[in-house]
């Protein structure tokens, strides 16, 4: 404050010298140091990310040159004859994530509706607290539950039931072998993804302005009709955002999936067949891939996964921002 008083009283000081003087003044007073100090740390995050992307790109030179775009359409994964293709893993990743979303989105949005609209505030807060704890459970623990509890249940009860009732659909056609299959992996993923959908959808629903609800109720709608026909469509984009966010998370899940999916490189229409995902194959084969082409093909799979999650995360953020911008918060 005193410095600005000083410069006002001596207006004739030439500009460049004045700038240097004020820089030095700020330096001595510590602000410039603080700025640079914090800048360095912020920049290091930027640099680390750049380094990561560079490493991923640089270490995939061999397969990119050898296979090119065919990498994404080849079905074989043959370390003996050095022929690598990503298609079975992309298929497995997409299918398990799709199953996860098919199960968790109705469940999650339903629960979010209950928590945001229909439940009294106290119960809603308590239940949300517990559900958000589910999001903190590590992946390997879901894997342990999957292997010892879920796989036998799927094999003994759920899959025979599905085969008996919906067996005419191609996805439920094959023999039920072991319970280690795409369907089980999808179910485990859905449990892992549900808390995110609930949490984000609930916030997005709460952000819908009160007057929308009041207007609908004033016109004689029931609570359910208000919710389903007015509030949810208003928050639709944000809910889609939560779905994309969950999809991004489901794609990268490694441990729980590799413990229950059967780890087989094959594309099958039947959900009772084992499969493989990108994250699972990297975890299983990375430490032992002999030969540069093999290793770099695995890294290229990692790069593909990374790009997919970037795109999904980006779309999700935009969607959620749009919804939160449209309405004022109820809180």
């Amino acid at each position, binding site marked *: 404050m005193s410095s600005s008083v000083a410069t006002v009283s001596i207006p004739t000081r030439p500009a460049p010298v004045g700038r240097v003087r004020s820089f030095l003044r700020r330096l001595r007073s510590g602000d410039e140091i603080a700025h640079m100090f914090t800048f360095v740390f912020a920049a290091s995050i930027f640099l680390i990310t750049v380094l990561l992307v560079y490493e991923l790109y640089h270490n995939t030179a061999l397969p990119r040159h050898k296979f090119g775009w065919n990498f994404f359409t080849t079905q074989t994964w043959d*370390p003996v004859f050095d022929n690598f293709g990503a298609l079975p893993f992309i298929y497995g990743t997409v299918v398990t994530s799709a199953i996860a979303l098919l199960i968790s989105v109705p469940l999650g949005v339903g629960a979010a509706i209950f928590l945001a609209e229909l439940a009294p505030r106290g119960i809603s807060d308590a239940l949300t607290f517990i559900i958000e704890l589910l999001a903190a459970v590590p992946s390997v623990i879901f894997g342990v539950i999957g292997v010892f509890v879920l796989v036998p249940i799927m094999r003994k009860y759920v899959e025979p039931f599905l085969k008996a009732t919906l067996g005419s659909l191609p996805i439920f056609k094959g023999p039920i072998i072991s319970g280690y299959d795409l369907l089980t992996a999808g179910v485990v993923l859905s449990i892992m993804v549900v808390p995110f959908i609930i949490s984000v959808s609930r916030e997005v629903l709460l952000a819908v302005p009160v007057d929308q609800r009041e207007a609908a109720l004033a016109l004689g709608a029931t609570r359910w009709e208000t919710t389903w026909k007015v509030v949810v469509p208003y928050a639709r984009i944000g809910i889609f955002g939560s779905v994309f966010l969950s999809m991004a998370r489901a794609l990268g899940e490694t441990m729980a999936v590799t413990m229950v999916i059967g780890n087989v490189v094959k594309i099958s229409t039947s959900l009772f067949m084992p499969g493989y995902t990108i994250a699972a194959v990297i975890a299983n084969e990375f430490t032992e891939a002999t030969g540069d082409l093999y290793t770099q093909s695995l890294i290229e799979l990692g790069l593909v996964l990374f790009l997919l999650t970037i795109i999904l995360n980006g779309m999700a953020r935009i969607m959620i921002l749009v919804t939160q911008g449209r309405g004022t918060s109820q809180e």
Partner: protein
Amino acid sequence: MQRIFKSYAGYVLSLLVLGAGLILVTRPSLTAPAPTPDNLQITAAGATFPFPIYSKWFDEYHKMHGDIEINYQSIGSGGGIRQVLAGTVDFGASDGPMSDEQLAQAKVKILHFPTVLGAVVPTVNIPGVSAELNFTPEALAGIYLGKITKWNDPALTGPNPKAKLPADEIVVVHRADGSGTTYIWTDFLSKASDEWKNKVGKGTSVNWPVGLGGKGNEGVTGQIKQTPNSIGYIELIYAVQNNMPYGRVKNSSGAFIKADLDAVTAAAAGAAKDMPADFRVSITNAPGKTAYPVSSFTWLLVPAKIDNAAKKKVITDFLHWMMTDGQKFCNNLAYAELPKPIVAKELKAISLIQ
């Protein structure tokens, strides 16, 4: 006074926790029986096939030399080969010998040292069937090719007239990771079936026509145990330790042999004479009336040049102990000891390590 105390309590607490953390992690001896300050840790990785005997050996060796810890991680033979080539472990282990191309990739020459003899057995989990089944090599190839799909297929009921094999689908289990056990199994199947040899071939990691993938011998055993109507190939000790029934395999003389120490030793009997200098040899389908056809050596992969003098001393000393006194632990864990002529050759080969 109270207000100052309250606002600084958090800082003090965090500092205390930080301090405790620092102390704990830099001196783990506080929580553990203190090792001597200059203990040496050697890192090794590789095959799961001999993991039970290796983990016993390294434990015994540590008991004898308290300041030496050999950390062996069983990540599969493929992993052992890869990590020893990359130099991230001090030595590796594999039941599939390194190929010429892999050896050419090494910056330092890699030496193979056979450690034990083991057997790969076809293990089954068929509810209601506890008898030992007889398998012909052709039947095993057919199962793994996906051509024999049910347990009551004639190729299986033929050699097993008394077993009540169900009409259920066979669940095939194989390795998901790079595996020397896979190498031994596919080497045997390639000798058993030309179709297998041309279609799939042999290696530590192959393009399996059918089946589920388990990680390591441990994972495959776990999967067979949990899955009814399954069959998988695992090292003998894993079946024994987990009380799982395993089948007899027909050898080149036509007899159905159950894997045990004598049968495996018989398979190696002929190998001693023709053992190449680098010890890389396959003894699957070995001649001999009592020989078990899916037997194999397993090797430690040691770099021929070790820069760290202390590590070199430990590794050579361990190799020496392993081939002589260490062999007495083998039989308890269902591995066969190395034939004496081979041990003699190996002891001489240790001097190749610079």
